[in-house]
């Protein structure tokens, strides 16, 4: 699905990604773990073509897309759930969701968009109940659901998720990650960037660990959960649980 080689990107003179190579196979849930500032969000933004790489190669579904426009990525099946949800608080839930379908504007597309919409409502019934409510009045978890739903409105094959657990209570994180498993069961491929290593490794197949713009460890989720470096660096206060 996705193959990245020697990717370098940054902002002005600041090089954030220093030669990243990774791959995501179809149907996989892959996570990229790393501390704040490691370059995780930049990596997702570069895959989504929001940031242009200075070097390297991104192959999506077999095509080189490192110079593609962001809308090309969306229309071809790669959607981003951005960090911090980035909803329009003064618009309703339904309006926010519909915005995600901006690539579907034809008459027949409308039908498809409606199908997507009802799928999202069935996955997150709470959104159906609150579809006319302003997005800004929702709880953090509900807002995250809207952000995921909005990305799903373009019917992506690859979903890029930027810290979906950020600022959420553990029980809500569970709900969100359960939804990720459901999406995979429906045929989606998912790449999640996370700081909450423990939670995400419970649902991911594989993971990479990123440090200061470089990948340093790769492995099956189970392997990473048991890797002492990962434990020390990313499992934070949960470390005790693992050592006891």
């Amino acid at each position, binding site marked *: 699905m996705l*193959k990245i*080689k*020697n990717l370098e990107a940054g902002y002005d003179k600041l090089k954030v990604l*220093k*030669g990243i*190579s*990774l*791959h995501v196979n179809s149907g996989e849930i892959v996570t990229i773990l790393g501390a704040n500032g490691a370059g995780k969000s930049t990596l997702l933004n570069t895959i989504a073509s929001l940031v242009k790489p200075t070097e390297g190669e991104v192959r999506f579904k077999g095509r080189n897309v490192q110079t593609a426009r962001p809308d090309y990525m969306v229309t071809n099946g790669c959607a981003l759930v951005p960090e911090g949800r980035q909803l329009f608080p003064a618009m309703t839930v339904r309006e926010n969701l519909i915005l995600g379908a901006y690539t579907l504007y034809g008459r027949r597309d409308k039908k498809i968009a409606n199908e997507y919409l009802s799928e999202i409502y069935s996955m997150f019934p709470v959104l159906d109940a609150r579809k006319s409510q302003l997005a800004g009045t929702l709880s953090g978890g509900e807002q995250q659901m809207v952000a995921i739903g909005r990305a799903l409105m373009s019917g992506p094959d690859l979903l890029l998720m930027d810290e979906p657990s950020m600022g959420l209570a553990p029980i809500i994180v569970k709900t969100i990650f359960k939804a990720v498993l459901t999406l995979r069961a429906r045929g989606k491929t998912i790449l999640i960037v996370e700081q909450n290593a423990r939670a995400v490794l419970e649902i991911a197949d594989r993971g*990479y660990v990123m*440090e200061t713009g*470089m*990948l*340093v*460890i*790769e*492995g099956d989720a189970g*392997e990473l959960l*048991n*890797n*002492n*470096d990962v434990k020390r660096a990313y499992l934070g206060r949960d470390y005790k649980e693992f050592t006891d």
Partner: protein
Amino acid sequence: MIYSREWETMLREDLHQLQVERLQMTLNQVYRNVSLYKDLFDEQNIEITDIKSLDDLSRLPLTSKDDLKQSYPYKAFAVPLRDIVRIHSTSGTSGTPIVVGYTKNDLNIWSSLVGRVLSSVGIDSHSLVQIAFDYSQSTGGLGFHYGAEKLGASVIPASGEEVLKQIQIMRDYRSSALISTPGYALHIANVLEKQGIDPQELNLTIGLFGAEPWSEKLRSEIESRLKIKAFDNYGLTEIIGPGVAYECEHRCGLHVSEDHFIVEVIDPKTLEVLPEGEEGELVFTTVTKHAFPLIRYRTGDISKIIPGTCECGRTFRRIARISGRIDDMLIIDGNNIFPSQIEALLFEIEGVEPHFQIILTRVEGFTAIELKVEITPDFFSFDEIKRAEDFKHRIDHYLSTRLGLHAKITLIEPQSLGRTSGEKISRVVDLREE
């Protein structure tokens, strides 16, 4: 059978992506955590971020046994000791052994790699596997043991048992596979013959041999005498132990587990990388080992990469069976000895430059060593037999205590060893395959 189809038959294109990813991560790790590699890279002004493809691998420096010996004991480890759960080492007959550590995850990977080897030769959960390798510092015993258990085979750790006991186990427990050195298998065949036991009465069908080079001739001898199918496999303690490369049912070379080890063949003189099909020295880079990663490690073993694909369906490339060494290292029943070590011992005893020759023959499967030593003329002029005997004893004692070797020692007159035109004595005469 193919143990992990997902990996062993992966598309070459996907394999290359995986190798590049893992290589880059390994480089990031060793540059940060192992001063040996950091210093080497810095000295040669190598930016690890410049390694962008497998072709760039050849820009990295080669490393050798000596580099690792200088890191004795733990300096080449890439993780703190608290993360290490197992420590093996090379035989260290040359003084300093190479100490190799494993994390929990390294052990898991190692067991699966050995699982590939065992599956490939037909061992499965129904097999009774008799392991006659040493369960000690060397990796043969425990390496195969864990791999066989992972497969669910019944494992009989039979190392250290004397041969009659081995045969009793083999017959009574109905072992179906024997894992040992090829020499030991031959020894078993000899004893079976002496005991009048027909190998057909045994359940043994598979032999998996390694730890020393063995010829096709020896293979067919073992096969016909033990009535089994014999397979080769390749591994080095420094790299991981058994599990680096293995034969499949077609026995047309050994598949390298390329998702974990990148193999190159170099010209040992020019150090240039050789194309597929050309014979040279095997060089390995590990790309998944956490505790003890190796970058472009020179094995000293001579082989080549066999071009083309194998009928078994594995996409991993094959290396030819090891045809020799680039140095004069001798592999005697699984132990590594250099003639220079014997030279050093003799020098220590005699105090002068010794002239000697090592003659290796095969007796009942094992290597028999004869050490011929030229002694100084005054030995004979004094005609002191006692002194000569004493000298022999000292050599014998030193050989067995320092190098663990048992040799027949023959003292001979000066200038009696055959010399070539360059006045050089060939130090080793290996008649084991004759």
